[in-house]
């Protein structure tokens, strides 16, 4: 591995600014790193030629004094973001060789700031999953290995390829999307930082829809400062997404070092779930002690409806998915299975094109929305969603951020839990409540498990208060001093 791939986004930017390195050198080093990590199956589509063109253009801009906030920095894009002229599949056979004729707003923002695209990353199909095992391209692999165990581990999901490629030092940062934990849980499993901003902070335009009331774009990076840098570019109002909020994007980097003296940190009693592994509980207690030692005020809070968040999510998200995925009909784009009759063509196309988990969720969604069941399931879930959001609103009268673990375990082996949907869903027990309430949240690496794998701590913030959230995460990051590297990365 080249030393250039060891840099943080912030450090690489400084070196480019000083003229110590060129965007072309930096990009070439990352293209080589992407090739070297091919066994991890983290990319669906590599775009090295485009990356070199973008890097060359970046070097020219910098020579002319026109460099943007991310100029010349090579990053990877989750294959859920439409990229004009570059195949975008959502890791599904049903999209086949779909080549978008338009660019997603978030990636457009990134390219305008000068970022360089290395390629499109592997993921769970249509972002449905917590392991990256449910991909038409096969599973992405975590660069970490459990001590004394050579089995391949999952990177988490659904943004598993994005998390792995950043952890394996083959991209400086990556985009993800988070519907119930799809940025934060893989960040925890791979020892990096993953942030889901407030619903509405980033435009969803051009991001292939899964559950529209929950989906949100966010960054995966190797440190909190890099998350602040990425979010500052990704965020912003977009008239093409009516749920995108027309509010100024603060300077997130500027607020990072404000410290947490006097910050009120809530500890929700209901997150101390049954069967929580001792090492997760111990990590959580360490996190609380770190915040207290830095002058934060620790406040016990209650979020009474926490236990209902996961089942609520598994009504709302499949319902929205069944509606959103109705567009894949074999007519306008993507796969078509041949049949003489129209309805048979639809049904066969969707049977052939969607994987098992996506089919399961579409069917659940169709069921809970169907005549006679709508009130009992979907309406009920939307009411409980109100209660969950109310819990947070009441808590945020007393606290500024909430601190919890990110996931109930460390990374598991590829193949585990694949046959037990509910066991898989439980991965997101700590991340789903903030999703249902639309709140910003961040996971950062805070320690190692007994097996030598990274564990994450999770902070949840007030709506549109990403600045405080990042500042608290930065303080926690300084305290944790997490410097472990996956085995595949030699320092």
């Amino acid at each position: 591995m080249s030393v250039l791939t060891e840099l943080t986004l912030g450090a690489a930017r400084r070196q480019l600014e000083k003229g110590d390195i060129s965007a072309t050198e930096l990009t070439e080093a990352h293209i080589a790193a992407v090739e070297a990590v091919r066994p991890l199956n983290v990319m669906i589509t590599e775009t090295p030629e485009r990356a070199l063109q973008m890097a060359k253009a970046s070097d020219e801009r910098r020579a002319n004094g026109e460099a943007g906030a991310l100029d010349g920095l090579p990053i990877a894009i989750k294959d859920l973001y439409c990229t004009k002229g570059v195949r975008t599949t959502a890791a599904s056979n049903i999209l086949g060789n779909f080549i978008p004729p338009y660019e997603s707003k978030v990636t457009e923002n990134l390219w305008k700031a000068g970022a360089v695209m290395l390629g499109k990353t592997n993921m769970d199909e249509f972002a449905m999953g917590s392991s990256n095992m449910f991909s038409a391209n096969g599973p992405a692999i975590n660069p970490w290995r459990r001590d004394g165990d050579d089995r391949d581990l999952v990177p988490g999901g659904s943004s598993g390829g994005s998390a792995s490629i950043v952890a394996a030092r083959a991209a400086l940062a990556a985009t993800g999307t988070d519907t119930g934990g799809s940025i934060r849980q893989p960040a925890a499993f791979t020892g990096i930082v993953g942030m889901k901003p407030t619903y509405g902070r980033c435009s969803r335009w051009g991001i292939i829809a899964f559950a529209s009331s929950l989906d949100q774009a966010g960054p995966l990076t190797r440190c909190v400062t890099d998350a602040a840098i990425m979010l500052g570019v990704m965020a912003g109002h977009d008239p093409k997404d009516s749920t995108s909020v027309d509010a100024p994007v603060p300077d997130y980097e500027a607020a990072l070092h404000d410290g947490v003296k006097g910050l009120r940190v809530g500890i929700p009693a209901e997150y101390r779930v049954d069967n929580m592994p001792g090492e997760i509980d111990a990590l959580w207690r360490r996190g609380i002690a770190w915040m207290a030692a830095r002058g934060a005020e620790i406040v016990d809070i209650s979020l009474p409806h926490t236990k209902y968040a996961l089942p609520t999510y598994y009504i709302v998200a499949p319902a929205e998915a069944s509606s959103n995925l109705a567009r894949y009909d074999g007519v306008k784009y993507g796969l078509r299975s041949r049949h003489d009759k129209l309805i048979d063509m639809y049904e066969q196309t969707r049977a052939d094109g969607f994987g098992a988990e996506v089919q399961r969720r579409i069917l659940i969604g169709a069921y809970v929305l169907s005549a006679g069941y709508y009130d009992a399931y979907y309406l009920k879930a939307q009411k409980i969603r109100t209660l969950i959001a109310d819990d947070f609103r009441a808590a945020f009268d007393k606290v500024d951020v909430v601190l919890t673990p990110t996931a109930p375990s460390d990374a598991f082996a590829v193949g585990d839990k694949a046959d037990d949907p509910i066991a898989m869903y439980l991965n997101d027990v700590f991340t789903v409540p903030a999703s249902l309430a639309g709140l910003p949240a961040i996971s950062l690496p805070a320690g190692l498990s007994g097996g030598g794998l990274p564990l994450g701590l999770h902070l949840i913030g007030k709506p549109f208060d990403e600045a405080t959230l990042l500042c608290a995460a930065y303080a926690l990051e300084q305290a944790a001093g997490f410097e472990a590297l996956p085995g595949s990365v030699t320092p």
Partner: protein
Amino acid sequence: MSIDKATVAKIARLARIHVAEEKQAALAGELSNILGWVEQLSEVDTDDVAPMTSVVEVRLPEREDVITDGDCRDDILANAPETDGSFFVVPKVVE
């Protein structure tokens, strides 16, 4: 709530996904498990609770009713599995 094979067949038709008959029983079991698990929501009293309609408090934006896009027929057709001139082609629907 337990789902039987006939219900699987019905919702598969609603969702326009072909599920082979030999797969219906296994799928009925999986879906029943998931629905049995979400059943715990019935213990929550929601009588006086309004369903969530928007996760963040925003007014739906308005804009002038003008055309902002168009003239991109070729882009729209570019990814279609089968086209004829400026049309999508589908199996015959009118006998």
